[in-house]
């Protein structure tokens, strides 16, 4: 083979570069219509949440007793009014902020903490693993709804307490997945080869383990967002978590229960929003999982 250029002189531009892992994933994801629609819906919801102050027609906190429980389609209140006369559309839009926030934030924090615990346990192994994972198992022994409610009940209602209890609920499943994935990666040949090169633990984790482990953990975390939203709204529904008069979809479901027989459509609306958001996140995660499953 004749080399026109000495290998040491080859600069970066003449190297053919293959697209990296995540660009390949994105390319595959783009070709999945369902996943793209789900992504679009979520981005739209996020946009609505951010722009809430500018797009709501009425003040979501102000109500008038005379205008209570108007059905959807009432002029001036397209989606009707709630039991205190507040405009439903405005409250639904503002509710997006809190509901999305309560859905995403606990998972976000749980991802950090749970991954740290799980990856450490998985990589170090031995008694460290045993102690960490057995402790996690104890928390995991409680069904999540029960735990969330018990924790919230113990700490009292309120957004911050709700966030804390949900974060605690989600740390064990994430830690378990992190540990499981890390253990399987750790036993692969290329990690052994890295050790054979003389690298120390931290370097191996940073360069070899993290890149292969964070993907699956992240996707798993995403699949929990829908659950988190439903749990958070459930907490508000029970009177824990978000308190009135804050607009939050779950809380709205609770307060509108009294109108179940008179204005059923009003009751259904916040639930529809939760449903749409939740199903979009689930479809998004499904699409992401398929896209990431690249068989060589």
């Amino acid at each position, binding site marked *: 083979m004749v080399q026109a250029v000495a290998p040491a002189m080859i600069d970066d531009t003449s190297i053919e570069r293959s697209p990296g892992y995540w660009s390949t994933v994105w390319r595959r994801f783009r070709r999945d219509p369902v996943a793209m629609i789900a992504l679009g819906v979520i981005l739209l919801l996020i946009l609505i949440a951010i722009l809430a102050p500018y797009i709501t027609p009425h003040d979501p906190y102000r109500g008038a007793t005379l205008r209570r429980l108007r059905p959807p389609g009432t002029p001036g209140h397209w989606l009707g009014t709630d039991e205190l006369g507040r405009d439903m559309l405005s409250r639904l839009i503002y509710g997006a902020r809190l509901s999305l926030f309560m859905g995403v934030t606990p998972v976000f924090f749980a991802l950090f903490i749970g991954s740290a615990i799980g990856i450490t346990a998985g990589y170090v192994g031995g008694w460290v693993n045993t102690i960490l994972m057995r402790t996690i198992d104890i928390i995991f022994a*409680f069904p999540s709804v*029960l735990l969330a409610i018990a924790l919230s009940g113990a700490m009292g209602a309120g957004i911050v307490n709700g966030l804390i209890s949900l974060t605690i609920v989600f740390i064990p499943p994430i830690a378990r997945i992190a540990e499981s994935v890390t253990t399987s990666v750790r036993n692969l040949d290329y990690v052994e080869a890295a050790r054979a090169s003389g690298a120390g633990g931290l370097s191996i984790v940073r360069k070899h383990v993290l890149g292969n482990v964070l993907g699956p953990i992240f996707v798993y975390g995403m699949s929990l967002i829908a659950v988190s939203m439903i749990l958070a709204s459930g907490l508000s529904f029970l009177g824990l978590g978000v308190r009135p008069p804050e607009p939050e979809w779950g809380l709205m479901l609770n307060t509108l229960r009294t109108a*179940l027989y008179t204005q059923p459509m009003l*009751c259904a609306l916040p639930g529809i929003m939760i449903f749409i958001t939740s199903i979009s996140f*689930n479809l998004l995660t499904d699409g992401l999982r398929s896209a990431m499953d690249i068989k060589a």
Partner: protein
Amino acid sequence: MLTYIAKRVIYTLPIMLGVTIVCFLLVHLAPGDPLVSVLPPDASEQLRQQMMALYGFDRPYAEQFIKWLGRALGGDLGTSIRTNRPVVAEVSKAVSNTLMLAALATVIGFVLGGLFGFVAGSFRDTWIDKVASAISVAGVSVPHYWLGMVLVIIFSAQLGWLPPTGAGPGGSDNWVWDWAHIRHMILPAVTMSVIPMGIIARTVRALVAEILSQEFIAGLKAKGTSSFGIFKHIVKNAAPTALAVMGIQLGYLLGGSILIETVFSWPGTGLLLSDAIFQRDLPLLQGTILVLACFFVVLNLMVDVVQTAIDPRIARS
């Protein structure tokens, strides 16, 4: 095999102990006055002290814990502050009510879930799969308590076919297995079955699709095995994981139905728990959480054992 079971049981003990400690801590470290439901607001300080001593709330935590644990192991979970009845009695009644719902929900959810999942996995990527998968995703994404409300709207408010709340004409204390009572079970049970149905359907679908793509299936077909024979092989291979998922779902059904029971006013463990939380009924709260958590742990253990019985490879790993 027996050694494996013994090993797993011993394994579970420290977890159970941890669970009881967490239970206790949860309840006692919470802010709020445990006696708020029994004492009038203007009770004298002396009365308060007396009541505290009566219930043992003035002792140090460790002592309270040991005492409580000791009695619990003997079957006595204390007395509910609110109703003055033994906690054990309250909890067992609630548990049996929840079990009824859970049983029905299990049957509906698991059967439908398994069916949808199996069909979707076998006919992967066809329209059958897409429909079944869509139903499963919807099942998993729906806020179940909202679904309960919707069902109530449709079947109670609009159509008037089924009652919206309660456990029958005489309440759960006078339960009889007749239509007048059973019709109260239908809506809550159906509502409860939806999320497990979705999860099981999705899990089974993935399992079945994976198994069918493995080479030994081609080998079976080449041998001329009948469709039923292949079906048996699929079931055998999918069973361990499917059972594990079902077990977990059963655990959730047993304990996590708080929201649905609230919607339907069904007097089960969920409602009991929620009342205990809001009334700050400490003994009841502790006892209920403990029973539920232990249920869950025992259930996991049983699932492990059954899994191993079906697939001996797991014990050796």
